[in-house]
């Protein structure tokens, strides 16, 4: 901001206060004759847009490479056009059906003709297989009905289509199939959110809880939350004494010990996970040591990996620096004299610690806890490698649906729920701590 005010005013007024350029109304002017207020607004605006322009390339980059892809994925959780893609004409016609009895003969004709076209279609997303998969989510086990029928449909060349279809497979003589087809023929659905929350549509279109056997997602969400909470808590109680020690030691020693914290932080995640496999497995280092000193017998080796224990140990180790660093940076700023003052006024060491020191560390605890919890809740690699079946988290289920079962909409719905949880925590972090306080080392 360079505002030059010409002090050698041409029309000096009688008041000594007003020494700048002024116009007839007595408004201050800059050297180029613009009112000062206006010039100030202009300059501020310019400075603001300059600052903004510097961030613009990155903001645009992130919108394209990050925000849009995630948004598009979230959209997938409510948008599944398999029905309209495979049976375009039928999808329009069945919208007019009221769901009582069977659809009209014309609708059946459109269904058969659309299916015959779809059978020849090889375009991804428009094959009978796509529709069969989509229907299978709605009615488990209905996949084969679609695929087997589509192979026989070429025999039907003229009406009545309804009877011909029922002749091919008696299962078509079932209102539930057609009601679900009507629902699938709509591009937008909340069915996948229902599935992600262990609910489903029943045969009459009401929302009910899923069968107990299929209720796996809500419990997995809670398991993820519980494990993340355990990991965060363990990180906190492990990080607290170390951070305290680092903050009170003389700089030379604490810098040296800090390397022991930073080295794991800088070491590849895969390396650390591998190391834990080497240490914890049944033929691993810890079990060997325990057998060697005779605490356990050779047959009684402890299973410490490929279960929840393995996930917890490895993740605590991996996330520990994220707890130590914020705690340390807060503790470093607490003067030692506070504790001495408390002691001099008669407080016992414990009281001094509880009433004076501990409350001062709360910002660091908030920062570390939230950060570790946020990172733990979305963890994927470590549970996938050392979690076995029991230690899998929600991220692993999402990856499973995206990569293996290919139920992308369900994966996206689970992802959206996870993302909402994380964003709420992120918002909270920003409120309580401020993201600009984040630092490494």
């Amino acid at each position, binding site marked *: 901001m*360079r505002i030059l005010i010409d002090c050698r005013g041409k029309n000096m007024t009688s008041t000594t206060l007003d020494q700048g350029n002024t116009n007839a109304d007595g408004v201050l002017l800059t050297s180029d004759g613009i009112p000062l207020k206006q010039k100030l607004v202009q300059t501020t605006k310019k400075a603001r847009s300059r600052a903004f322009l510097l961030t613009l390339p990155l903001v645009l980059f992130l919108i394209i490479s990050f925000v849009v892809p995630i*948004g598009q994925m979230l959209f997938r959780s409510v948008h599944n056009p398999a029905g309209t893609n495979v049976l375009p004409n039928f999808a329009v016609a069945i919208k007019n059906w009221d769901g009582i009895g069977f659809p009209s003969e014309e609708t059946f004709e459109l269904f058969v003709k659309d299916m015959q076209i779809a059978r020849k279609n090889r375009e991804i997303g428009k094959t009978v297989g796509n529709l069969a998969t989509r229907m299978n989510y709605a009615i488990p086990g209905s996949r084969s009905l679609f695929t087997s029928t589509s192979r026989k449909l070429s025999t039907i060349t003229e009406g009545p289509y309804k009877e011909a279809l029922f002749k091919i497979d008696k299962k078509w003589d079932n209102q539930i199939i057609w009601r679900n087809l009507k629902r699938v023929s709509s591009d937008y659905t909340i069915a996948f959110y229902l599935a992600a929350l262990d609910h489903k549509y029943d045969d009459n279109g009401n929302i009910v809880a899923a069968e107990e056997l299929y209720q796996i997602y809500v419990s997995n969400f809670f398991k993820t939350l519980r494990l993340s909470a355990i990991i965060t808590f363990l990180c906190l109680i492990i990080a607290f004494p170390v951070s305290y020690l680092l903050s009170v030691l003389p700089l030379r020693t604490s810098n040296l010990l800090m390397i022991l914290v930073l080295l794991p932080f800088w070491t590849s995640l895969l390396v650390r996970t591998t190391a834990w496999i080497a240490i914890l497995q049944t033929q691993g280092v810890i079990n060997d040591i325990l057998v060697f000193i005779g605490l356990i017998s050779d047959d009684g080796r402890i299973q410490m990996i490929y279960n929840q224990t393995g996930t917890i140990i490895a993740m605590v180790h991996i996330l520990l620096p994220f707890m130590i660093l914020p705690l340390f940076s807060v503790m470093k700023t607490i003067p030692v004299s506070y504790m001495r003052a408390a002691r001099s006024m008669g407080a016992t060491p414990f009281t001094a610690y509880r009433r004076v020191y501990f409350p001062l560390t709360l910002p660091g605890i908030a920062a570390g806890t939230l950060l570790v919890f946020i990172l733990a809740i979305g963890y994927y690699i470590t549970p996938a490698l050392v979690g076995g079946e029991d230690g899998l988290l929600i991220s692993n289920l999402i990856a499973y649906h995206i990569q293996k079962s290919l139920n992308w909409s369900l994966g996206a719905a689970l992802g959206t729920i996870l993302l909402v949880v994380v964003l709420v925590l992120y918002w909270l972090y920003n409120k309580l701590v401020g993201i600009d306080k984040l*630092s490494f080392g």
Partner: protein
Amino acid sequence: MDMSKFQKHHIAFAVACVIVLAITQHFAVLLGFIFLFGTPLFFMKELPPYATTVERIWQYLFLTICTFIFVFLITPIIIIIPLSFNAEPYFTFTDGMLSFESTAYSLRWYEDIFSNGMTNPDAVGSAWYSDMWNNAQWVRATRNSFFIAFFATIIATVLGTLAALGLSRPEMPYRGLITGLLISPMIVPLVITATGMFFFYSDIGLAKTFPGIILAHATLGIPFVIITVTATLSGFDRSLIRAAQSMGANGWTTFHKVIMPLIMPGMISGALFAFITSMDEVVAVIFLADVEQRTIPRQMFSGIREQISPTILAVATILVAISIALLTVLEMLRRRSERLRGLAPS
């Protein structure tokens, strides 16, 4: 504290050592005991005269706990180093290794890094080198990793530094919102990011290509650049800019001659962070890459899942050596930055 007290707990410790040896009758156990419970004694400092006996005991306990935690932190990283020289295909110490027999140690897993995947590992001379360079799986993965990390780092550092310069200006509008957006790649679960990118990049033809992975890794590295460069800029004396301008420097000269040298350490450590993020990243690679673009972590991931062999430990040891080197560079940069900004040396 008087000398007698100082000697007292040393005597107590010596007695404890004798008892441990008597019970377990293993010198290895005694060494472990001395390391874990003797180190705290070394770090014990003189307490003020008003300290109670409970406090003295508590201080020793506290230091012992800290020793255990540091051991917990560093052991996994240290332990893979000797294990990678195992002559047997095991993930644990063999009897031979424990009794330091030279035959129990070998470099075979390091050789395996170069020979695994070669079409003709017995060739000699330049044929061996070109075979190794083109076909060995780990060598390929290393080349891919460096290639991807190099370009991802450049994109992340250039864009990130520019944005950090903007964010640290006092006039920046919507600072909170934009900072929140720029840091979010670090916060959003990687599976969600990777899934989103997988769908989007598949649509625009970037999936299973190097540019796609480079873009993904640049995105994931950006928060680290932003955080480190903004931290450097927070101690930046803005009057220096005005001083430069008052002496007639234009915008570019001011940046080039005044701002840039001062934020250089921050930029380099941000770049190092972005580089290591890319070198270590595996989720996006799992979703986005084909066999052609396999990186070191991706190779390790499938190695751990499919055919676990100490070759992974050998690779891990090399990676640990690299991280030690990077950490040293970073520490030197930090000190340099503090010196440049006129902060007290530490």
